[in-house]
């Protein structure tokens, strides 16, 4: 029997661990008060309260998702549980993707263009104002741009006129990498959703 004296159960947050910076997300989740779990098999989805899809190469992740028959299980998970996607994860969570077009889970009503700022030399770090969080350092690496925002989507932060941190229902997406800074406020926002 586990000891259930005073503190409530910490939410268990899965990180899709196929390719990308999933270890950085696991650290950020722990800092934000969650318990992290690496997820790369469908049967593990039953053990988690929410899922983070990390940064990395979205097309590479899609190949692995396809080879391992994970597409439907992940999409089904997202239809009832919260999912947070950063960069590549924001691409996978979107309704439609261009440059080039590719499959996605259609969990948020956003349209995303891959590698929209250019190549690595166009990667950059900026300070942003985010609703409910104040100033944030945002690291953009070969980042996508959210070109279309549906009417149900709430924009929490923008950069050069484009939405970069958005929520819709249970889900969140960021085109930058909060996991690459020591600041865990964005992850805390997600972990707190799982406590509701």
């Amino acid at each position, binding site marked *: 029997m586990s000891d259930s004296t005073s503190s409530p159960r910490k939410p268990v947050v899965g990180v899709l661990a196929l390719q990308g910076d999933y270890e950085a997300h696991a650290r950020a989740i722990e800092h934000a008060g969650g318990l992290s779990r690496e997820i790369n098999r469908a049967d593990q989805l039953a053990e988690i309260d929410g899922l983070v899809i990390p940064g990395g190469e979205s097309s590479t992740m899609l190949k692995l998702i396809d080879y391992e028959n994970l597409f439907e299980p992940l999409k089904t998970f997202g239809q009832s549980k919260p999912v947070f996607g950063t960069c590549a994860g924001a691409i996978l969570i979107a309704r439609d993707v261009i440059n080039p077009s590719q499959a996605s889970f259609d969990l948020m009503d956003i349209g995303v263009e891959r590698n929209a700022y250019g190549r690595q030399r166009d990667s950059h770090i900026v300070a942003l104002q985010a609703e409910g969080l104040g100033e944030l350092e945002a690291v953009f*690496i070969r980042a996508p741009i959210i070109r279309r925002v549906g009417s149900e989507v709430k924009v929490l932060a923008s950069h050069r006129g484009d939405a970069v941190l958005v929520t819709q229902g249970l889900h969140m997406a960021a085109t930058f990498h909060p996991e690459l800074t020591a600041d865990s406020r964005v992850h805390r926002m997600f972990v707190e959703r799982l406590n509701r």
Partner: protein
Amino acid sequence: MFGSLLQDEQFRLKVGLAEMLKGGVIMDVVNAQQAQIAERSGACAVMALVKVPSDIRKDGGVARMSPISVIREIMNTVSIPVMAKCRIGHFIEARVLEALGVDYIDESEVLTPADEENHVDKRDFKVPFVCGARNLGEALRRIGEGAAMIRTKGEAGSGNVVEAVRHMRTIQREMKALTMLRSDELMVAAKTHQAPFELIEWVSKHGKLPVPNFSAGGVATPADAALVMALGAETVFVGSGIFKSDEPEKFARAIVKATTYWKDAEKVLEASEELPDGMKGLDVSKIPLDELMATRGW
């Protein structure tokens, strides 16, 4: 101060891209057609080079940066990051690759060195660099010059994983040893490793490199890829193996699978089963000393 190198905004962006490549496979390609196959098979990046290492080994002569037209065509063909190799110390090849807009430069011992003493000063480039290393001192010298990713050298084009294992184990062991030293013992460690003091101090405190540590040189089967991951590699570079095999796409997919699922022996078994045969390997001890690529650079 290296504290400021590691905190520098450009350096963080360079390391950031290396972070995004973790858990994946970076594949050597010599043309756009191969790049397309690599991308389709699940590569997280491709490395453009003039010939794969086993052909460089076979054909001899001077191996240089790839023709620009080939790299440009690769960049226009795939959406994943494109890396390209320049010769050790050839800072002009590096500037050309930077101007072209490649995502990463590999200052590589696989090409014929342009400078037998000096490596490129990589700090004032906007494009990130990866460099090879056989031991901790070499890794930290390259990071001191501005490399944002280290890969163990292994012995490229040999199809033999023994050198990759030796280099990965050496770096891991040397890092672990540093964590047991007192602070007043670190200067002599810097002297022994011939590495910048501030980076020795950083490794002593954290027990790992301040940049991602990938593995290269001699990975020829899915089990080889899982082995180097288990020894501490964060990503695998695969060179000659893929496009020297009879079925490149199948081979590439099997390596990708074994790299992702290295902790899961059943998945490595599946990957191994999908692959009939690895490339024919060379006994590293039989390669003449002056033909070893790992000993290029210092």
